[in-house]
């Protein structure tokens, strides 16, 4: 496999995306086809490199290469990202309402740029490459979330996402600095070998960055705000790409976490708690996309947990299966939003009956999310559970509870979607239509078609976590001998999921205020971080006005005073001297004018006399 394909893989979407962005309105007509074609090419290339596993490196910064490599983990994730991106772009190109048709060129350009950044991140073999992909990913995600920049709150949502993840990203720089200080060549595989203090610093930095990106506690709130972006954006960013990259990074550096001793535990607990708490948040949501967002954070909690308990096989399987599932669900939400103009659960009551294909696909996705056997997330979650079980019973309990909670929120949506509404309810539902945007009342055939492969993925990708593939995957990603779930466990968890589903269908779900409002995380951050910083800035501004500015003004006043003194001296003494000299020169000049009579012969006479005088002088001297 030639490394050239790897370069093409990342430069093709990057160059095309930048080109579309720069072309602007001119390229609107071709943007969709170009985007889809590029994504298709990327998919083909991704599959190619996944099979060929090339690695390249070029000198980038002093002491570190820009390295890309496709190891087993990347070989699994790269095609996943590419396929999801392709399907999402096809869906977006097929949409006739919503946000995308407003500026297709910008949308597809940014999406392609984002895709290129994700591909770099996935394939990154060194920290500089990782940072590069990471940063471009963050920047493009901001632009994509704030795609409808005319709405201030959407742009603000993008800013929140960007600022939060950026703040967490600093950890990556910290890690890079620690790696440099520790004498490493900034290769990801070299991080576990760092000397003690630097290794801990690097692990902490990577952990913070990954948790931030993956919307784990305490950073989860930004994901809520990010739901203001277009649905295809959510489908890509919050399923296979950006958020997933946080989990992916932790899977990548799982050896580093394990090497420190404490970081793995922190990651495991953070993941488990997120899975539980955000699951509860999801249960309380009344907005489909908000629910899906919370569920994304929760599901990625399992991935983070897997990284923390050194079960990269299960984590990878969870990542891939969740990507398919969540992309499917976000696209479904987007399709309904475009068609019906609402994403309120109340407004979507009975929506599954309107378009059967969409409804069935949504059901498959939701069942998978719930962990119902034999769908994908049931198997992957169990594999992680098997790993947790050996490490800490407490953690196992929390994890199990989180799995049950996920069945609860999935069941809540499922019930609402398939409900056969009464006439009164139908009126209620129709009142909610078009409250968020004017709906088109139709889902394009292409968009419906796209959902099918995703649904198939959501249903079947569980094989990655089942024998015989599970052991092979675990061995490939470097965790041979990872514990596998026993049939009993599998059956047990499946039964648990089905029981919870049944309970939800029967009794409904609670909606506590703390969960509806995402644990008040947003407010807490405002109080604890934003307000103090603003106060500090105001204080600094006052300091600037009161001290620095006054100093400058004082210096200027002093200079003016000195200048005044100098001016007095100049006008009295120097001026007088100059005048005196000028007067003397004038007198001399007046004298000098006297010989200038204008009469030629007098000039001659003067010359003769002068020359005679000179001759006499010469004779006298010699």
């Amino acid at each position: 496999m030639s490394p050239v394909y790897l370069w093409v893989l990342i430069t093709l979407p990057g160059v095309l995306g930048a080109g579309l962005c720069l072309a602007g309105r001119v390229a609107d007509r071709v943007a969709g086809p170009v985007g889809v074609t590029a994504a298709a090419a990327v998919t083909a290339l991704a599959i190619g490199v996944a099979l060929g596993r090339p690695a390249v490196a070029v000198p980038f910064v002093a002491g570190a290469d820009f390295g890309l490599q496709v190891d087993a983990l990347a070989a699994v994730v790269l095609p996943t990202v590419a396929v999801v991106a392709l399907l999402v772009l096809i869906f977006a190109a097929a949409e006739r309402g919503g946000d995308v048709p407003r500026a297709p060129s910008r949308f597809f350009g940014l999406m392609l740029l984002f895709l290129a950044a994700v591909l770099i991140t996935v394939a990154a073999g060194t920290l500089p490459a990782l940072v590069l992909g990471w940063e471009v990913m963050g920047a493009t995600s901001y632009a994509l979330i704030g795609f409808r920049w005319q709405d201030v709150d959407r742009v603000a949502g993008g800013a929140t996402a960007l600022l939060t993840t950026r703040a967490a990203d600093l950890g990556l720089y910290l890690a890079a600095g620690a790696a440099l200080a520790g004498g490493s060549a900034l290769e990801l595989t070299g991080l576990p070998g760092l000397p003690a203090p630097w290794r801990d610093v690097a692990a902490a930095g990577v952990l913070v960055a990954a948790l931030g990106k993956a919307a784990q506690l305490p950073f989860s709130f930004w994901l809520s705000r990010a739901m203001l972006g277009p649905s295809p954006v959510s489908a890509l960013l919050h399923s296979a790409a950006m958020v997933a990259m946080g989990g992916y990074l932790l899977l990548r550096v799982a050896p580093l976490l394990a090497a420190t001793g404490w970081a793995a535990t922190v990651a495991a607990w953070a993941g488990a708690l997120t899975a539980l708490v955000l699951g509860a948040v999801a249960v309380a949501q009344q907005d489909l996309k908000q629910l899906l967002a919370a569920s994304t954070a929760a599901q990625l909690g399992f991935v983070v947990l897997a990284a923390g308990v050194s079960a990269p096989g299960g984590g990878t399987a969870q990542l891939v299966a969740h990507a398919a599932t969540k992309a499917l669900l976000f696209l479904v939400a987007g399709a309904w939003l475009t068609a019906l103009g609402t994403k309120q659960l109340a407004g979507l009551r009975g929506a599954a009956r309107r378009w059967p294909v969409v409804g069935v696909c949504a059901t498959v996705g939701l069942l998978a999310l719930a962990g119902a056997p034999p769908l994908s997330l049931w198997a992957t979650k169990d594999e992680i559970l098997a790993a947790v079980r050996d490490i800490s019973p407490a953690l196992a309990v929390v994890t199990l509870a989180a799995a049950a909670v996920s069945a609860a929120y999935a069941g809540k949506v499922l019930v609402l979607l398939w409900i056969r509404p009464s006439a009164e309810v139908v009126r209620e539902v129709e009142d909610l239509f078009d409250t968020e945007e004017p709906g088109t009342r139709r889902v394009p055939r292409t968009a419906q078609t796209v959902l099918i492969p995703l649904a198939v993925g959501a249903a079947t990708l569980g094989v990655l976590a089942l024998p015989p593939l599970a052991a092979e995957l675990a061995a490939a990603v470097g965790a041979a001998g990872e514990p596998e779930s026993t049939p009993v466990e599998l059956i047990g968890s499946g039964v648990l999921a089905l029981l919870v589903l049944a309970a939800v269908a029967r009794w409904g779900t609670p909606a506590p205020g703390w969960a509806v409002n995402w644990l008040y995380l947003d407010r807490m951050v405002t109080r604890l971080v934003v307000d103090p910083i603003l106060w500090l800035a105001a204080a600094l501004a006052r300091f600037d006005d009161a001290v620095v500015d006054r100093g400058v003004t004082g210096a200027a006043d002093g200079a003016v005073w000195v200048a005044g003194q100098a001016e007095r001296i100049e006008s009295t003494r120097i001026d007088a001297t100059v005048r005196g000299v000028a007067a003397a020169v004038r007198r001399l000049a007046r004298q000098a004018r006297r010989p200038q009579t204008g009469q030629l012969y007098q000039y001659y006479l003067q010359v003769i006399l002068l020359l005679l005088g000179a001759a006499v002088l010469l004779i006298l001297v010699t």
Partner: protein
Amino acid sequence: MTLQLVLVVAAALFSVGVYGALSQQVVVMVMMGLELMLNGVILAAVACYWFLTPTPTAQVVLLVVIAAMTVEMAMGFAVATLLHRSRNSDMTDMATDLRG
């Protein structure tokens, strides 16, 4: 025939030229005075060549003197023509623009 005697002749020519340059009012006549002075210079230079240093360098000096005469004549005629055209006069007394 000695150097001194030839130089005295040259001095005589020069002095006559000086008289002309000082006394004449007409531009062209003034130029004649200047020419006469240079005539004396030529004679003196040749005398020095013959009696003191019979080298080709002396001839170069003479060539330079002749060139100087040429320049003087050309510029003198040009200025005189200009003066005559603009003032309808060829008297140096009327061209006193350089009065200080």
